[in-house]
């Protein structure tokens, strides 16, 4: 029965994707991307991936929309339709789709327990996690401990992307633009004149941040972890910036603090790895962090999840501020 739900949701997903590509109004496309993300999260949840669904929810519900709208405000809202070589590419795309669909007939069907993916390391992870690490959430265990190198790499990709955005956008804006001090003061007031969103939003911000901390520290026992928590806390602070204006949000969390968060989070992760070497183990081997290897693993995962959370929160907020601080040409 639930598989039929999944089929229905996937059909809606395909329709939404086609609509995003077809529409010429970019604002509409961004709104449809919101629906696309909701459908993806629901699909992930139906397919038993609660952690992934939580990540998609935390990122897709607020931050993606805010970033794309920020970019639209700085560029243009409509695309000009040019159709050069449209039929050729349509043909190529359709042929490739058919080839891909033909190839799926050799794939194991959805949920087949004998599929090759389920026979290699996955059973080992599921069996050994309670013994080696002793936490219920296997996804967090694999993310933090078994594949810690991988996650370290991903954190540094986020770090690098954030530095890239800051390099590109935080310089002085283009020379041919008149600097208009009045415009900046009148546009950067957020939604201060809208009483209802302001009251409700300010009421919700503490809950959002609190929920972020819950997701951060409950990640060993339920769906959650550093990536989701960082995104949720960042969403809460972005909400504050929307309500009170961007400068006000920078007073609450100033730029140096954001820089400190990005660097500190990534460094914390690396430092835990080096502490493993210093105590006589391998890089990112947490077993040596405490007398009992299981406790050591748990401490290690807690610390690196904290590092991930801080770094992701700082990176997403810096990216948001980089877009929000720029004046449209």
């Amino acid at each position, binding site marked *: 029965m639930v598989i039929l739900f999944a089929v229905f949701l996937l059909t809606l997903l395909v329709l939404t994707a086609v609509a995003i590509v077809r529409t010429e109004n970019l604002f509409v496309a961004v709104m449809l991307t919101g629906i696309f993300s909701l459908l993806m999260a629901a699909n992930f*949840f139906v397919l038993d991936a609660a952690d992934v669904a939580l990540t998609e929810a935390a990122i897709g519900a607020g931050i993606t929309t805010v970033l794309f709208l920020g970019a639209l405000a700085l560029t243009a809202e409509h695309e000009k339709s040019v159709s050069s070589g449209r039929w050729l590419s349509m043909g190529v795309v359709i042929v490739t789709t058919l080839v891909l669909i033909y190839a799926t007939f050799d794939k194991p069907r959805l949920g087949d327990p004998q599929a090759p993916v389920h026979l290699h390391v996955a059973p080992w992870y599921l069996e050994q996690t309670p013994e080696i690490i002793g936490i219920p959430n296997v996804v967090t265990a694999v993310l933090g401990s078994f594949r810690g190198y991988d996650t370290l790499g991903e954190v540094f990709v986020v770090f690098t992307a954030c530095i890239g955005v800051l390099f590109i956008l935080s310089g002085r804006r283009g020379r041919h633009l008149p600097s208009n001090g009045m415009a900046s003061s009148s546009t950067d007031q957020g939604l201060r004149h809208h009483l209802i969103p302001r009251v409700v939003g300010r009421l919700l911000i503490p809950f959002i941040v609190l929920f972020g901390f819950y997701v951060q520290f409950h990640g060993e026992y339920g769906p959650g972890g550093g990536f989701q928590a960082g995104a949720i806390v960042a969403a809460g602070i972005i909400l504050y910036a929307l309500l009170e204006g961007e400068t006000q949000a920078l007073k609450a969390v100033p730029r140096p603090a954001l820089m400190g968060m990005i660097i500190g989070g990534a460094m914390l992760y690396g430092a835990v790895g080096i502490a493993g070497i210093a105590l006589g183990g391998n890089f990112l081997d947490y077993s040596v962090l405490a007398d009992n290897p299981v406790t050591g693993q748990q401490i290690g995962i807690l610390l690196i999840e904290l590092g991930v959370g801080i770094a992701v929160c700082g990176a997403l907020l810096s990216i948001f501020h980089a877009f929000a601080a720029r004046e449209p040409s």
Partner: protein
Amino acid sequence: MYYIVSIAILITMALALTRALLGPSVYDRVLAVNMFGTKTTLLLSVIAFLYGRPDFLDLALTYALINFIGVLAVLEFFQSRSIRRANNRVDGS
């Protein structure tokens, strides 16, 4: 019973998506996105119970908390756009 509720929610999601695709104004689409968000929250809560894993309600809670940031961003977008247009008119005259 959970199935019946889920089916009602799924059909309504399809209706909301139709509204989002038809338009005609951009606000209709924002409305559809907002509706879709509430429906997803409800669907996730129902499916969490359907699966017998109520600890997954965290997901619905996330959407309940941060889904309206998108709509506020839209309000902010339109507001600053209208202010900018007013400024441009003043500058141009």
